[in-house]
Every structure is written in structure tokens, then in C-alpha cells.
């Protein structure tokens, strides 16, 4: 054992300063890095640069999956492509009908509110991004996308897919960004039950297909099948985006809170592309412009960012 003093074990591996001394130096360096990564700007800058360096490696590591996807896509049969095409055409028709109806509704809504014209759409612009790597385990549910700061992606931007809210941007590198999914145990999203406007918070469970609503009283009016949309509180997600559908409510008579589970509508496991939303902050449906620090929603307690007016 190496407790007999430095002279004994020196010849084996000791060149340069003693191991213990070097460990101390590394430990101090680590603690300083961690502290300034959380509170200071220089190390955050450094982290940003390191993210840039890591990007090619991330792409390389997830390339087998990408290659497999490409292969299966290229060798799809004609029949399945035709079926796909037919389904998409049908979907398009359906959506067009729905949009037409919605335009009428918006007009009517504007008239009811006493406005002269319908409000402009509150989603100012949107951006498609491809998922390059996925990390789903009970501790972290994150994906990395191939758009970053150079594409105008910013922290706390809402991310959706065709069916519902997927998550929000947690960290931005130059060419990539990390998205924290709604199912991440560190993520919480303010929601509202469509049926009765009951508000609550949906917290990620760490499971791919499950959200928890831990703050609903036992006598609150929720039931299986209820649709949840974002409530617009909290400053990240605009109001009215579909989030999840309640799958189960358990009421234990000796507990104050009900145990409510919900299934997110976004298909985290199947998506290959996601949509980043840019919201017009002047619109009434946009989230409140000045989010105080949200310990649940923010992945890391970074200084709260006030969205710029042009974001």
C-alpha cells in the first residue's frame, strides 16, 4: 500500500509533483470552474466555445443512428411511399379546412373583443431543426438539435413538434442547442385544463411518455382524457399550445393532493425534426415578458433572461 511515504512509491509512477498535490490543484481548478460556470460569464463563454468543439463529435457519435435512418428511408418500398403520400394529402386537406374555420373564429373573436381587425398570428416565425442526438434516461431527457446561436436560437425558446409542446432550449452552442424535454425531471410547464381552465404545473417524470401533475388538490376537477394546454404563465411557453392528455387520476382519501398522470402529445421518441417558435412579445397571447427565475422550469439557475423585443 502506498502509505509508507513518498519515497517508497516514487519510482513507480512519480515524476513531477506528488499525486496528492496534483489532485488538490485539479480539485481547486474544478471547483473554480463549476462556480464560475454557474455564476460568471467568462467560464460560460468558455463553455460555449467548448460546445462548438464538441459539436462535430456529437454528430459523429450519433451518425450510426442517422445512417440507419437514412438507409431505411432510402429503401422504403413504393407502396409504403404511396400510402404515406395519400395519408399526408388527406391530412393536408383536413388541416386546410381547419385553418379556414379558425380564420373565421379569429375574426369573430376580434369583433367580440372590440378590435378592428383580427390579431396577427402571435408566432412571429418558426424554424425547423433536426435532432442530432437524444439522451433519454430517468435523470435527463434532452435532445441536441442542429441549430444554434448562429441561426438565432436563444435560451428559453419554446420547442414543439406537430402534435404538441416538446420542451424548451436549455443551452445554446454556436451550431447546436440542447433542448430540455417536458418529460425531464427538472422541467416544469404551467398548464391549463381545456375543459374548465383549471391551472396547474406539469412536471417531467423522467419517463419518455409521462408527465406528473403533483400540485392538484384531491377535490380538483380533473379526469382521465382531459386535454392540457400551456397556460402562458411562466414566461416561456405561449398560451394555448397543446401539451398533454391526462391518462390517470388517483385520489387517496388520506392524502391532500391527487396523483395525476398525463401523456405528452409530442412524440419525443419518434421525432426527427422539431420546430423552434419565435413569439411576438407584443401579442396578448405571448408569455409574460419578464420571467422571474423559475427554479422548476430553468434547467440551471442562470440569470433570468428577459426576451429581447425582436426575439
Amino acid at each position: 500500500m502506498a502509505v509508507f511515504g513518498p519515497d517508497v512509491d516514487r519510482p513507480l509512477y512519480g515524476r513531477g509533483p506528488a499525486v496528492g498535490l496534483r489532485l488538490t490543484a485539479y480539485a481547486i481548478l474544478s471547483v473554480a470552474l463549476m462556480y464560475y460556470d454557474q455564476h460568471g460569464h467568462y467560464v460560460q463563454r468558455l463553455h460555449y466555445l467548448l460546445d462548438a468543439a464538441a459539436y462535430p463529435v456529437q454528430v459523429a457519435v450519433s451518425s450510426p443512428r442517422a445512417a440507419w435512418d437514412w438507409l431505411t428511408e432510402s429503401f422504403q418500398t413504393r407502396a409504403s411511399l404511396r400510402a404515406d403520400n395519400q395519408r399526408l394529402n388527406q391530412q393536408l386537406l383536413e388541416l386546410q379546412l381547419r385553418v379556414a374555420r379558425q380564420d373565421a373564429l379569429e375574426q369573430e373573436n376580434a369583433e367580440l373583443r372590440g378590435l378592428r381587425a383580427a390579431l396577427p398570428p402571435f408566432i412571429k416565425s418558426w424554424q425547423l431543426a433536426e435532432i442530432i442526438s437524444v439522451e433519454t434516461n430517468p435523470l435527463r431527457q434532452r435532445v441536441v438539435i442542429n441549430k444554434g446561436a448562429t441561426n438565432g436560437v436563444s435560451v428559453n425558446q419554446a420547442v414543439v413538434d406537430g402534435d404538441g409542446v416538446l420542451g424548451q432550449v436549455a443551452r445554446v452552442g454556436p451550431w447546436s442547442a440542447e433542448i430540455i424535454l417536458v418529460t425531464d425531471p427538472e422541467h416544469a410547464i404551467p398548464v391549463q385544463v381545456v375543459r374548465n381552465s383549471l391551472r396547474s404545473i406539469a412536471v417531467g417524470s423522467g419517463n419518455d411518455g409521462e408527465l406528473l401533475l403533483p400540485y392538484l388538490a384531491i377535490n380538483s376537477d380533473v379526469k382521465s382524457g382531459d386535454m392540457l394546454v400551456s397556460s402562458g404563465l411562466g414566461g416561456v411557453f405561449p398560451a394555448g399550445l397543446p401539451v398533454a392528455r391526462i391518462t390517470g387520476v388517483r385520489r387517496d382519501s388520506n392524502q391532500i393532493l391527487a396523483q395525476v398522470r398525463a401523456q405528452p402529445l409530442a412524440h419525443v421518441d419518434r421525432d426527427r425534426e422539431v420546430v423552434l417558435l419565435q413569439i411576438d412579445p407584443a401579442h396578448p397571447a405571448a408569455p409574460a415578458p419578464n420571467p422571474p427565475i423559475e427554479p422548476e422550469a430553468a434547467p440551471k439557475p442562470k440569470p433570468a433572461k428577459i426576451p429581447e423585443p425582436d426575439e
Partner: protein
Amino acid sequence: MSDRHPRLIAFTTTVIAMVLTVAPLATWLAIVRPAFLVLTVLYWSIMIPRAGGLLLGYASGLALDVFQGSLLGEHALALAFVTYLAIRLNLLMRAKPLFEQSLYVFAALMIYETVLWVIDGWSGHALSNPARWAPTVTGALIWPLMVGILGRFHATR
């Protein structure tokens, strides 16, 4: 094999272990995925301390921080610490039969995970999910296999 460049071999295998650690996997596999990087660094620290040394542990931990998006320095500190322990105790561990080595490795992995857990707690990520301890068990179980594979890359003395 080429015992003349233990540093190069240690570095190469560590890079491979890093890829295995960050490669995307299905959820259930990701839960039980052993910490290949820690195992590899431990292996070199125990078998050829001069091949890797503290710097290997620290640098690869820092790289892991970048890839996983954790607090910069978190994995680096944890990995440097268990590397230090392994270097200090390498003669003791090398002489033990594989099964007993696995127990030591289990202890090292527990320490590693505990350091991460404490830092997570301090930095506001307090999460107590039992699944985070699964890799320590699978890591200890896979240790004999790691020894078998990595042992081929250098002459055992």
C-alpha cells in the same frame, strides 16, 4: 502488444470508452449502461499508473462535462478523485483476484457517483432517482470483462 506506448494505448481506449459513454442508446439500456469511461480510466490507473495518471482522469472528465452539458468541472472532479484513489491503491488492487477487484471498483464507482450527486445537489439539481446508482452495479459486474479486453493491449507483469 505494443507495450512501448502505454500512454497512446491508454489515450485511445479512453476515447473509445468516451464514445461508448455518450453514444445515444434506448432508455432502458441507458439506465444500466456502465460508466465505461470511469472503468477504463480506473483500469489504466491501477495497471499502469504512469500511462494515464491523474491528467487522463481529469481531462476525460472535463470532456465528459462538455459532451453531457453538465456543470463544467463536475465529472472532472469526481473522476480525478477516483483516479487518485486508484493510483494510490494500485499495488493493493492489482494483487487481488478479479472478484475482489470488482468489489473495489464498486466502491470507487459509488464514490464517483456520490461526488456527482453532491455536486448536483449543491448546484440545484437535487434529484434522488434510484436509477442513478444502477451503473455502479453494472460497472462492477462488467469489470472482469474490461480487464479481459484491456489486458490484451499491454503485457501484464
